[in-house]
């Protein structure tokens, strides 16, 4: 699954972006996002699209995986673009550029920032229990994915999967999902027990100490502010 691949990039990557502070990367992503949303100029938008592409290349993450994920918003924005194209080609292109740029920004963020750091930053704005739900969701996801993968393997080996018999597959898949859901509930009960025993009281303590910014952080923040400003200044093109 893609989340696993992304998670791996974020944790094992090594580039100036991986080394920057999470708060920097989140700020940068938000500033770029704002820039994209307010831009109504195709050239500016194209530049805003080029920036995350360049950064993704520079951060040496698995580009194929990113492209695969980026295909989704791209294809989807075509849909909206087709409507706008009836106004003008540029309007259509703009929609696509914005959508793709925004998605690449998010992908850049998640591919260079481990989820724990991200959730740590979310915890400044969201209630504690919600953050805990994030953490539990994420951790359970990996455990359950393993289970499901094994189950699907098992189904395949036992002749329960057929390339074209859809209803047949559906029945077996529903069976596997059902079994996995039940295991998941047992698991949630065990999680409850172990967490209680380990002193969980409704707030997972994250290490959220303020770490001093490094030169690279300053550079990235400055850069994204310049970009934002650039969006607001009228250009003569």
């Amino acid at each position, binding site marked *: 699954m893609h989340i696993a691949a992304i998670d791996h990039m974020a944790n094992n990557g090594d580039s100036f972006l991986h080394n920057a502070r999470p708060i920097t990367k989140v700020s940068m992503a938000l500033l770029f996002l704002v820039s994209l949303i307010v831009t109504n100029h195709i050239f500016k938008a194209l530049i805003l699209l080029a920036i995350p592409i360049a950064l993704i290349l520079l951060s040496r993450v698995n580009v194929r995986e990113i492209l695969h994920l980026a295909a989704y918003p791209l294809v989807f924005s075509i849909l909206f673009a087709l409507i706008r194209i009836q106004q003008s080609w540029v309007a259509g292109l703009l929609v696509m550029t914005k959508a793709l740029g925004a998605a690449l920004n998010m992908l850049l963020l998640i591919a260079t920032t481990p989820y724990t750091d991200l959730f740590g930053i979310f915890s400044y704005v969201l209630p504690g229990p919600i953050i805990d739900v994030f953490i539990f969701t994420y951790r359970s996801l990996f455990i359950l994915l393993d289970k499901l993968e*094994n189950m699907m393997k098992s189904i*395949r*080996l036992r002749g329960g999967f057929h390339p074209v018999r859809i209803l047949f597959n559906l029945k077996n898949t529903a*069976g596997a999902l059902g079994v996995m859901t039940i295991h998941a509930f047992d698991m949630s009960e065990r999680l409850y027990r172990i967490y209680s025993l380990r002193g969980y009281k409704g707030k997972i303590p994250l290490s959220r100490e303020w770490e001093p910014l490094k030169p690279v952080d300053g550079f990235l923040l400055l850069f994204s502010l310049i970009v934002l400003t650039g969006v607001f200044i009228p250009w003569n093109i």
Partner: protein
Amino acid sequence: MEHLIKVKCIRHVYPDKTEVDICGLDFVVRPGERVVILGPNGAGKTTLLSHILGLLSPVEGQVEVMGMKPDKDFNKVRKHIGIVFQNVDEQIIGPRVYDDIAFTLRNEGFSRQETEDRVSEVAAMLGLEDILEKIPHYLSGGQKKKVALAGAVSMMPEILILDEPFDGLDPKSKSEMIDMLNRLNGEKGITLVITTHDINIVPRIADLIYVINKGKIVTKGSPADVFAEVEMLREANLEPPILTDLFDRLAKKGYPLTAPASIDNALEQLEMILGGQVQDEERIVSG
């Protein structure tokens, strides 16, 4: 056919770039053999089995099962292999025990009558008649393992592959499982490929042992031969079975002993060399 399974120096790369090499000696399984794979945690035992099952494709090297490539001819190879994974919970899919044992049979289009007959036969063989109507979720660990085994043999496969089948079983259930597997091998001629960390039972279930360590199949041989190579075993986080170790050390000191296959055999051998040492009075006292 000369060999059922042949694996030649494969290399696998997991999506996260973890590389697993299984090189060195060829891994060869002949019909009717009981083969045990030993090796430390993370050696690649499960990876090797996945290649044999066609669940993974090697980056390099060759895997051959009954003359076919399991990853290419998945649907053909699969029919000849029964499999019990380590975590049987993830393997039992049917809502009732009966449905689970019948799962493959139904998928392969057996008629209702045939399915019923086959399930009864397998259930009788493994002693599951009484729980056919039960919901697997509520079975004990040992019962679940038996159900998984029943599901795996329902198609009467040529090869049965088991990944750590004895984990979490109490000693008696483990013994029963071993007997059951030996019966399947003896009576039905099913070839067994097993991984386990439970060294002490290996002499009871193995004709042939392969040891994997650090990306290499470092040894193959009969239990007696492999367990004699103590240095190599320690190297691979393993150790010889307790009795083998004891007898080996005694033999090194000059006593004429050979690695025993069972505790009874060990007793016999020891009595032989101890013969006549005990005084009659003592015997009466402690008997």
